């Protein structure tokens, strides 16, 4: 009994020390020498996370959400996908939309990353752009596949606090352009107001969540 309590205390102490150390490490300045290293580290963590055995779907999604917020400029993407309708919407509407969009993007991106789980992942090259802040990180999923690798390009912005992903292009298809075209198309087709989009997004999230639970 005494042994068991000591072991528990020791285990707790080690755990606390470990967590404290890792939190300190996370709070330090980003340890990535360039955007390519940032993508490599983030990609590996995402693939490991979604391929982890034993975790429930909800646990995986919660952890993926944290990783997504760490690596992606989610709010900026949310504003971008509203296109010209962001300016004609009220601050309250935009905030409500952004809140829903965060859930939507987690669901969408985790599904996209899940489809790549088990594959190999390598940064092929990093390309500078005209904007001094942005770089394009070109990666190959399954480089040795018979039909050739799947090309995934990350648009990475360098903020003073570190890197954030603005866009992911899979085989030439930009996630944020597709979402912007879809959302603005929807708004234009529904009276030019953002409210129907918010309603549709809420309904879609309800559907996606129930589907995820069924699939579990």
């Amino acid at each position: 009994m005494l042994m068991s309590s000591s072991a528990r205390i020791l285990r707790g102490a080690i755990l606390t020390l470990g967590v404290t150390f890792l939190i300190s490490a996370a709070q330090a300045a980003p340890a990535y020498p360039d955007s390519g290293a940032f993508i490599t580290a983030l990609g590996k963590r995402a693939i490991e996370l979604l391929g982890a055995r034993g975790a429930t779907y909800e646990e995986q999604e919660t952890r993926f959400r944290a990783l997504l917020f760490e690596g992606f400029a989610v709010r900026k993407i949310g504003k971008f996908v509203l296109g010209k309708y962001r300016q004609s919407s009220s601050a309250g509407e935009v905030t409500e939309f952004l809140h829903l969009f965060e859930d939507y993007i987690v669901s969408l991106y985790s599904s996209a990353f899940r489809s790549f789980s088990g594959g190999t992942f390598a940064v092929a090259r990093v390309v500078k752009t005209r904007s001094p802040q942005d770089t394009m990180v070109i990666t190959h999923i399954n480089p040795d596949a018979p039909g050739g690798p799947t090309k995934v390009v990350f648009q990475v912005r360098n903020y003073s606090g570190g890197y954030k992903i603005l866009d992911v292009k899979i085989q030439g298809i930009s996630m944020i352009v597709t979402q912007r075209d879809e959302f603005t198309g929807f708004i234009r087709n529904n009276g030019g107001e953002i409210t129907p989009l918010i309603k549709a997004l809420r309904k879609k999230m309800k559907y996606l969540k129930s589907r995820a639970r069924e699939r579990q």
Partner: protein
Amino acid sequence: MKTLFLSDRFRRRVVRTLAAIGIGAFALTGCATADGDMANDPFESVNRSVFDFNNKLDSAAFKPVAQAYADNVPADIRQIVTDALRYLKTPVIFANDVLQGNVDRAGNTLFRFVINTTIGFGGLVDTASATGAPYHSEDFGQTLGVWGVGEGPYLVIPLLGPMTLRDGFGKIGDSFIDPLGEINETAVDWSHRLVDGVDRRADLLDTLDELERTSLDYYAAIRSLVRQKRNDEISNGEGNLPIPVPNLSFDDEDEKKEPAVKQSALEIHMSWRPGR
């Protein structure tokens, strides 16, 4: 007999061309009245109706056939069908490689043709890919894009599906290049189209299902994907330009609000939960 053959072929192509010009003229008239919207879809209302019609037809006929094909035909056999269909496109691909002045890709296509004709059992096996000469697609729509022709308005054609006006003209251009067009046998022509359609639809079964489930506006999502995919094909996958995302001051404030470090700590903390 020869005269009749030429006459039939000529008539068929003239009808196609006139139909296309008709569509083109109609579309260009629409262009003049378009409001300069980014979607460049002046016939959106008609297009959406045709899109719905095509989707219903797809659900009733094309998708079940493609699903049955994917479920019942072994993957190896499906690969042979895909390889054979790609092999049959060689003349069109080669001609367009040349028209685009892309010597490397024309050489690649020629090399693939020689390898796949000989040790690829007459085009049934894509041996060339394994030797480092992967397949690439080219068509006259892409060539027009390389030549700087604008994509024109977005169109959804009954049965044929979505395309830009430029690609509509591109298809006509390819029909003049394609030696299969020389075969004056309707059965052969339609069999080839049917197998090609089923093969391509089977490839897209999961992708389109997922897109339809997750999108808020399936029509607008497809419109965006069609355009982006074509632009990627025109640039041969080398269009690595960034999407211009403005860096406004209030956005930067938002970035500061995004709880990156806090979330990271949360994630690490969760992964360290006892019993994990």
